[in-house]
């Protein structure tokens, strides 16, 4: 029984790993170089934006910044940030990176609801009441983008590895599927 279980587990692991690897590799390979480049640029842009905003709130808390400056700063970049993320999402979609697209969806949804309910702009009069939640939100976003960046870089590396070592015939059918 145990042996049987083990073998099943191994099979599963192997299959999933295979699937995963192939998926990653194919995803990057299929997309053209320009897309890869875009991803690599977009994500750092989002990371830096999030970091900038987080820093702004921290500065406000430490009194290096007054609420007026902060709100003008934040409100200036908040819509571009949302747009950037939207673009990012759509890119994933149209290049067929389903998993990545799904992963980025929650944030997009969050942004959208904030925007639609008109809460995306910082209210200068009440900024100190939201400072903690805002900081937390920024931090989570930051972590999220960093994770994404890691994923994309890993995929890139993997795809390069595959491109070098794997035979093309094997990969092509997979990529066409996705």
């Amino acid at each position, binding site marked *: 029984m145990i042996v049987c279980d083990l073998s099943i587990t191994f099979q599963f692991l192997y299959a999933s790993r295979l699937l995963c690897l192939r998926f990653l590799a194919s995803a990057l390979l299929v997309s053209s170089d320009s897309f890869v480049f875009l991803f690599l640029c977009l994500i750092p842009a989002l990371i830096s934006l999030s970091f900038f905003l987080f820093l702004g709130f921290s500065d406000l808390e430490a009194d290096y910044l*007054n*609420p007026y400056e902060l709100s003008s700063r934040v409100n200036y970049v908040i819509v571009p940030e949302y747009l950037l993320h939207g673009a990012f999402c759509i890119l994933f979609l149209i290049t067929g990176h389903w998993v990545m697209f799904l992963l980025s969806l929650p944030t997009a949804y969050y942004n959208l609801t904030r925007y639609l309910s008109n809460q995306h702009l910082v*209210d200068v009069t009440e900024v100190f009441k939201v400072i903690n939640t805002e900081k937390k939100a920024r931090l989570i976003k930051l972590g999220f983008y960093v994770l994404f960046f890691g994923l994309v870089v890993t995929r890139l590396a993997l795809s390069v590895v595959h491109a070098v070592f794997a035979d093309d015939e094997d990969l092509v059918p997979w990529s066409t599927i996705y």
Partner: protein
Amino acid sequence: MGTETPNRPNYPLRPTATPFASQQSSTPFLSSGPVAGSAASAFRPAPPAASNFQAPPFSGGPLVGTEAPAYRPPPSSRSNEVVRPPPPSSSYGPPSSGFQSFPNPSMPSIGQVPPPHSSFTGQSVVAPPIRPPPGPASHLSQPQPPLVTMGSPPQSIKPGQPNPNVPLPVDQHFSTPRPNSQPSSPPTGTSYATGRGTFPGYANMQPNSVAQTPPMQPASFQLQQRGYAPPVPSASFPLQQGGYAPQAPPTSLLAQQRGYAPAPPISNPSGFYSGNQVQQHGMGPPVAAQQGLAEDFSSLSLGSVPGSFDAGVDIAALPRPLDGDVEPKSFAEMYPMNCNSRFLRLTTSGIPNSQSLASRWHLPLGSVVCPLAETPPGEEVPVVNFATTGIIRCRRCRTYVNPYVTFSDNGRKWRCNICSLLNDVPSEYFAHVDATGRRVDLDQRPELIKGSVEFIAPAEYMVRPPMPPLYFFLIDVSISAVQSGMLEVMAQTIKSCLDNLPGSTRTQIGFITYDSTIHFYNMKSSLAQPQMMVVSDLDDIFVPLPDDLLVNLSESRSVVEAFLDSLPSMFQENMNVESAFGPALKAAFMVMSQLGGKLLIFQNSLPSLGAGRLRLRGDDIRVYGTDKEHTLRVPEDPFYKQMAADFTKYQIAVNIYAFSDKFTDIASLGTLAKYTGGQVYYYPHFQASIHKEKLKHELTRDLTRETAWEAVMRIRCGKGVRFTSYHGNFMLRSTDLLALPAVDCDKAYAAQLSLEETLLTTQTVYFQVALLYTSSSGERRIRVHTAAAPVVADLGEMYRLADTGAIVSLFSRLAIEKTLSSKLEEARNGVQLRIVKALREYRNLYAVQHRLSGRMIYPESLKFLPLYGLALCKSSPLRGGYSDVQLDERCAAAYTMMALPVKSLLKLLYPNLVRVDEYLLKTEEFGTKKRLPLTAESLDTRGLYIFDDGFRFVIWFGRSLSPDITRNLVGEDFATDFSKISLTQEDNKMSRKLMEILNQYRESDPSYFQLCHLVRQGEQPREGFFLLTHLVEDQTGGAHGYADWMLQLYRQVQQNA
């Protein structure tokens, strides 16, 4: 049921409250008897037993009489012998010799004097009922005499109190009429309540009473011993109890009736305890050692017999703040160098020493600061000028030098009390230190003795030259402003104030009027008449003149006066109904942004043109009760918040005067005041003929009161604690810096504390409020208030040092803020929940050890908290739903309450109600009148009452009030519609007297003008609107009455207890 207030320190001081109390205080002997009873009542696990004791001595009398048949004194106890149980039949009948019966007037009249009781033989005195039971005659309970006789000599609660003979006390008691027994005083109150058959539980009681048996007593006794007994040697107690046991039945009756007798006896112990407490702090008078066991809490027995009568609360015995706001004194005595409590009040003066302790304190932890509170003559804040030295401050935490810093190293160093950094003393400030560590020049240094000082700030505290006082008026001149007469009253008032504006020759002034266009006025001093310039381009506002829109008042005085004279007539024919409020606001901003100052806006209609135009909302009843309800109470257009932020940035404070009889969206307009440290004045349905005086007085006060300009305020506190949130009308400029473009004595700010460290190691936490401002005279000043508070490790201590006023103030601000993000009901529930949590926590502290099942216990310091909580839930900002309060009124009240100092807030929540007809008829002086509980039962149809909540007077004419009085006060046409007359002084003594009284009240509370509204009994809907909905103890609409509320709290406290 009895309310016990064991540690009420002042009980003895207020003997008048209850006849019994007086007895006690005056005659120790009596007290001994009652004491036992009271104590018993307080502790008794089972209410009947407790009531038992109390009843006989005081209030029990009447009750007993009515229900006499029900009880049978147990024969076994020795007291029985003495006691003569009334024959059952007699109880109802006319008073027999043994019983005294009071005539019970059907209406509760305060003034009623109990008829003299000739026969006191062995009968306990009945408290004169404030609200006598309608039907039943009150009997004196016989038990008293027995008590007396029995009166176990050994137990004297107060050491040194002789036990006088029974008769004497009784006599006294009888002889002293207490026309106005304070309802607050528990004993009397109970008696009344009990007397009234209205309670649901009442009917049921009787069987219970019968059922009551001596066995209950032992239990009660035990309790006594544990909890309160301290004063009496335990041995004596049992005896007493035994002695009293027979009386138990009567008491049981009381209990049934829900009578709470906050028995005088209790009071004794309370006095004791208080003493004890004090002692603990080292300042109290010495108290007998026996009191070691003393606990300080009050309790209220509610539905003590499980299941039998759940609804039973003795209304009259419930605590009421009829003395107004009573600040805790012990704290001030503990730290005499603290600033006065009018400047800074902590919700509890015991700062918890750990986060876990703080989390068990479910009430808000924080303070209410009123930095510029008015000081009575002689107590002005001293001004200190460190001309050359520079202001002495801590290097690290920037704390100002204060009485709590310590000097060391022979006076060369000083240690900051807040961060304990050792600072150098500048050589100019150096003084030797004597052997005790005191500086030798202490008496010349007010900053080292007084908790409140004002420093004159040198140039480094200025970012620009101190601004002159600046008043700018933005006046709506559309048709409604003209028609209501507002324009005229306003112009006259401003003109009359010109001489009294602060700042003498530096004061600047300017005007803009607007309807669908914006009118600027050139007031250049060289002109004879002001020049009007009209700007009609609302999308792109520009200021037609660079200067001369804002002019120096003394230079352009004649032009300004000419303008004010002509203003009403100028727009006499104006038929414009539009209001370009937003553009006008922008224009005013452009004119003022150079200097800052105060912007007074007179708005008569809904802004309808240009930026910031608002739409009609708030009349949609469907929104109420949904998740969108709160959006009605927040500004609709972000324009207003943005403008408010800009105003604050440029040191402009906005005061809104709104007059419309239609919807004006105060929620949006008020935002301007909220974030600029301003104030909202709302005069719905303004009519010059009626509201003239009010507007005049309030505008005058606004213009002439001492104002601090371009101010910032910061509260520093010791290591380990931090102020985390602020509540009030201001804008935060950084996490702990409040920007206040203008501050005055009528503004208070609240802040909440949190503990940063898990454990505080210091013994004392210091707070320092620093307000940096420009005075009207052009001086930059820093007003510094310093206070110290002990760190405590015990929750009970925190409760003991609690300050109800500050807590209620914070509560109301939190609740109002909550209405901005959730439903009214949730805000109300929030208040209730926190009170319940706090009481439950308190209960857990004491209930187990005293087995106080069946009673509600609460700290003496917080005895009014439930009532204020109820009043808060019934206040305009939180009350009811759509139809209960107009949206505008609700928002205006909310903005006002966010800025009110503690005293005014408490008065608004629990207004004064006094009866005056007797004073008008008599010749005596009008002294301090007894306040009445706010319930419809306090109103006698033959009386004339004044209801005063600090914002308006309501004069209530009883239906059977003598027409003479009405004629004298209102004039010959007294039968007309009261809504159309305003009270003026008639040429007769009565009217003069009434006006005197009103003026006296007004002078005592000058921040607002109390307009008189005359209301006749039964005159709907005015009576309901002006008075009945404000009787917070009554059940109105869907809201609870006081008794129900207490019961509900009690039940919730019991859950999961």
